[in-house]
């Protein structure tokens, strides 16, 4: 399955998924960055740190990264990939892809409104 195909999440789910989605917002900072990083394929901890640093210009400290990874794994939004290396990669699950999509859509709506209002106030000011 290609990474993009994996982000094509199902539109239905059980109670565990809705619980995971409802708690996602509380830890949206590192979680959004991690899920966004995993959206294009599996990555281990250090690769996640470097990728996030590159696209978001934020460096997530190791403890914070694994606190978020453990939470996301518990919520079923990511899962570990079998590895013979000490660096264990993680990948996005279907629920994780859906959670990320919903969260980013919501953020985009807020950003669109904010930018539109800023533009209109700049035009009238």
């Amino acid at each position, binding site marked *: 399955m290609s990474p993009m195909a994996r982000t094509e999440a199902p539109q239905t789910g059980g109670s565990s998924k809705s619980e995971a989605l409802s708690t996602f917002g509380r830890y949206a900072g590192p979680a959004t960055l991690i899920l966004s990083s995993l959206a294009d394929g599996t990555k*281990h*901890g250090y690769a996640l740190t470097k990728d996030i640093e590159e696209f978001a210009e934020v460096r997530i*400290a*190791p*403890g914070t*990264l694994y606190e978020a990874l*453990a939470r996301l794994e518990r919520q079923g939004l990511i899962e570990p990939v079998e590895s013979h290396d*000490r660096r264990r990669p993680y990948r996005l699950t279907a629920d994780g892809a859906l959670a990320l999509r919903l969260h980013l859509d919501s953020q985009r709506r807020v950003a669109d409104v904010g930018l539109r209002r800023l533009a209109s106030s700049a035009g009238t000011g």
Partner: protein
Amino acid sequence: MTATSDSARKRADRLLRCYPRAWRARYGEEFTQLLIDDMSERPRSVARTADVVRTGLLARAASAGLVGDTLEPQQQIRSGLAAVGCALIAFLAFGVAIWSQLTIGWQWSAPAAPSTKAAMLVMSAVILVFAVISLLAAVPLAWTLGRTLVQGRASGLVAPLASVLLGAVVPVIGAVHFGHGWPGTGGHPWAGRDVVPAAVARPPHSGSRPTGRILARSRRSRRPRSPGWW
């Protein structure tokens, strides 16, 4: 393995000890590797150490059932009960010991300087406040526990509950023992009457205890108000 990577591994292993055993079993190896990779880029980082210590302590609190949602609800109640119980017992042991020293010292030798009196009053008040806080902390847990017991879902709660109660009984027995001046506390009413052997009623080490010193100093400085068996 180079000396640098060996040193990084040792430092990573030390940092890993901040986390509870179950967490280390699951994430220890990969997390250690991440720390080593991070140290290869940033050899020294106070922020990284602080972050690991903070999240490690949070993971420990979560494994004790005090924060987060990492445990099953039933397990969370059990772990929370055990954690609060241990904290209460530690508080009782130390708090009662300090309080008894204060009150005994006050009884036998009232503080002469106003500053000493004020300090003792403040210390007593602080101990009292800690006692109230610890009781308030136990209220939500006791409520949840009571509800669980009423609902008949108490399986697995009997053993930790019994250990908490037994633990709480220990300082009570100690206080009663001390209050009666029974053997081992530095004096016994029968000591001077040869009913109890002097070595048992007033063991040699008792004079070196803080309480023993207070009483001995008090005996030297004034006639005792009570009891007469000294």
